[in-house]
């Protein structure tokens, strides 16, 4: 067992996913199976270098020009709940 039931509950909280009891029961053995499989990488002869990405892009900076987006209203239109032009969430008192 790589992760325990308590671990899983904590991770789900950090990930903001409200898992049901049934989901936990189903997911827990799957996680451990996957993690045990992935743990195999530990036994492999790996090079001593950590590679993050494979891009050839140059780190060019962008000129500081303000170009407003053409359709901010289309962004506002997507707010699931809104008040005027604001996105609305529960207040935090």
């Amino acid at each position, binding site marked *: 067992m790589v992760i325990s039931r308590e671990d899983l509950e904590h991770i789900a909280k950090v990930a903001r996913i409200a898992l049901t009891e049934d989901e936990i029961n189903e997911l827990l053995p799957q996680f451990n199976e996957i993690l045990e499989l992935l743990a195999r990488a530990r036994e492999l002869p790996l090079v001593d270098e950590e590679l993050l990405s494979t891009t050839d892009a140059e780190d*060019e900076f962008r000129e500081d020009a303000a170009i*407003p987006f053409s359709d*901010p209203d289309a962004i506002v239109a997507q707010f699931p709940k809104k008040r005027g032009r604001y996105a609305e969430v529960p207040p935090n008192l």
Partner: protein
Amino acid sequence: MVRIGFEIHVQLKTKSKLFCTCPTNFLDVEPNTNVCPVCTAQPGSKPNGINEEVIRKAVLVALALNCKIRTEPIRFMRKHYFYPDLPSNYQRTSEPFAVDGELAGVRIREIHIEEDPGRYELRDGTVDYNRSGVPLIEIVTEPDMTSVEEARDFLKHLRAVLDYLDVILYPQIGFRVDANVSIEGGERVEVKNINSIHGVVRALKYEIARHKRMLAMGKKITRETRHWDEVRGVTVSLREKETAEDYRYMPDPDIPPYHIDPALVEQLRAQMPELPHQKKDRLVSEYGIDESAAWTFVLDKGLGDLFESLADRVGVKNATAFCLNLRGELNYRNKYLSDIQKPERLESLADLYFSGKITKPVYVDYLRKVLDDPTFVPKAQELLSEDEIRAIAREIIAANPDAVADYRNGEKKALNFLVGQIVAKTKGKADPKKAIQILRGELNR
């Protein structure tokens, strides 16, 4: 012993945001208008290139704070936490690009670049993303300050440097401060979300007193994060849930590491404007004013500039007196000169006063009006003629026989009283010097 350290967030003055081309003037537009797919984290959007002006301004600040600029590749990290004002629920924050600086005796540990979140109004439950993606630098000091006074002094110096470099997006907002405080025998407490130097002073005083009280009661001070409540003037503990958050830092795969070109650093070093301590030295040697007055002037960039302009016009002595007086009035209001609208009104005020076109009481009254009423414009008053003053002086003499008798018996104070009566009666329209002359003449007749 008290130990204080700061993390200071400064919004940089640029036209566009850090990773997109949205304008940065979030204070001046309707909610959610300076927004685009990038700064609202629409699915599929990607950060555009890093804004070049952010790098320039950030390096300029780092140089002014005597930091070493790192030339190795610098990565943008993702700092994950769920909060409504953070559209992607992670903040892009770079590794330090500058380290090991110093200002006013306080060591600067590091400076890095990050993006500002939007604005979540906790009480209303509303979110506005106009500010989301505005470039910030975060300046992190060592805990080198040992009193509230030292802390205030450091922040004033920092503020002056930033003003001289002209890098603050909205000078009226200034910067945001997270303060670390510890006193001997207790753990370090972080106070977040302080929005002004005045607020820092209040928060630190509150927090130090709280620590002392706790220790005196035999309680422990544990490591925690607290929130400064500006309205109530207290710090409040944040729930443990939030302090225990695991940010799961990860290099942002969408942003290749950036390099700061040493040639750019040299170019910026050469362009560095005069800094506060340099200006202080110059004012002392050029105008012969004392060190402490010079510091007072240069720590408020506008005031230093005003002093120089006035010194040429009304003389060093008058300019010094005027600016010190002005500083006092500004302190009383917790303001910088740059907070005052149409500051050229102050120059006309000094001209009026020192050319004798207004009297001292009128000057005192006008100065306050200029500071408090943006529409007020100081004008030369119509001073009374000598005959008019004489007529009023006679009235006053007739109405105050006791004071007149005292004067004639050699009591000097009585004269001041009578002059005061004239000034009051004429509502400041009489030049006090002339009033004294005329009054003496009348009394001695």
